[in-house]
């Protein structure tokens, strides 16, 4: 993660951003998700640099609005959100705290993103977020959002979602 400049205003902005939740996975914040890449202070206000998760993620605009709303409510306006596409977001940027929060709400966190893996090998080593068993099977490659797939635990019989490594 980019090192923020050290002004008090920027520090306060980061504190506020830690409390802005992802609208599609409200268990974790936008900073735990790793999409906030930088907070820059300009003469005219704050610039929040965000890297989108998926090309077609419908939450992108909602997240930008939630960020400006939260900063405005905290008295840090004016603030604007800008997009930075490169380097592309990867689930490797989800923080350890974010992974624990995902697991706690029943979503198996992504494993390390192996970009060089053979194209037809899908993750088979997804542990159940409820009972911890490795005996799980995939029900569907896609789930309620583009970033998740559906699994079932063979041990405790509970269905769960898996945040896909990308």
């Amino acid at each position, binding site marked *: 993660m980019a090192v923020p400049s050290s002004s008090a205003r920027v520090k306060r902005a980061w504190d506020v951003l830690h409390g802005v939740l992802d609208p599609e996975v409200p268990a974790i914040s936008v900073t735990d998700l790793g999409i906030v890449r930088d907070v820059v202070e300009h003469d005219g206000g704050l610039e929040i640099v965000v890297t989108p998760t998926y090309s077609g993620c419908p939450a992108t605009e909602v997240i930008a609005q939630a960020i400006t709303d939260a900063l405005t409510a905290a008295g840090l306006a004016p603030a604007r959100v800008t997009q930075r*596409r*490169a380097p*592309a977001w990867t689930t490797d940027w989800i923080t350890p705290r974010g992974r624990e929060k995902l697991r706690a709400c029943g979503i198996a966190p992504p494993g390390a993103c192996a970009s060089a893996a053979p194209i*037809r090998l899908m993750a088979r080593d997804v542990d159940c977020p409820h009972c911890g068993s490795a005996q799980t099977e995939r029900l569907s*490659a896609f789930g309620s959002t583009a970033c998740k797939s559906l699994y079932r635990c063979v041990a405790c019989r509970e269905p769960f979602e898996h945040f896909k490594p990308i």
Partner: protein
Amino acid sequence: MTTDFAPLPASASPSAAAASTTTGSIAFAPSPQEAYLMRIGDSCLIHAQRLAEWSGHAPILEEDIALTNLALDLVGQARALLAHVGQQTGFDEDQLAFLRDERDFVNVTLVELPGRRAGRDFADAVLRNLLLAAWMNVLWAKLQASNDGEVAAIAGKAVKESRYHVAHAADWVVRLGDGTDESARRMRQAVERLWPYTAELFETDAIDTAAAESGLGPMRVSLKAEWEAIVAPVFAQARLPIPASGAFRSTGSRGVHSEHLGYLLAQMQTLQRSFPGGVW
């Protein structure tokens, strides 16, 4: 959510109302560089529209969700490319998507072939997904080295998404091709119908050459070996024969389309044509 549609004039007759609220096409004259990017963006966009036709109609709920998720990625990729070209040409992404005429679309013909609405088989849908996802995977991988920084950034994201598209489509092609006698028969028919349109994916012309010479992106012919390296093993596992190459060449990426694209555009564009500037 608010809608922002222009109201129809209350006093006008239906035909007069239609005439007064129908938006004409933009005059779009792209440079060779822009045309190169529009070929990719249009192929993503039209492919997404065809996939979205399956929404509510796929054989199982999970596949319904999968197909629309694939479409969502493709719409996002198309948006990024059209917005990028639009910045250079003075149009926004919506104008480029909804206010161009059929001959100004330069998608490959394969993506516009009829889908569910024309009674085509689900086999056609899963086969087309594989053929195109493999092509886009190879294309995006090479576009990461584009000398256009925005294109390279779009490709850096899209290449990762396309890996999931390939994997998902390959699963289905194997499941059906190496499934029952009935599913195998229908997959073979889909191969016979769609395979002739794959030749266009590797055609080279002046636009292609200019892009390669300037460092914008690869020539399409350079994608073929890697595409085959993805597709051929899946066909082998699915027990599907790879047809011999023929003389037929489709010409969608030159703006000369099959009879099917016009109908697709009529449906896709009707809202913006009838309610100019309407937003969600």
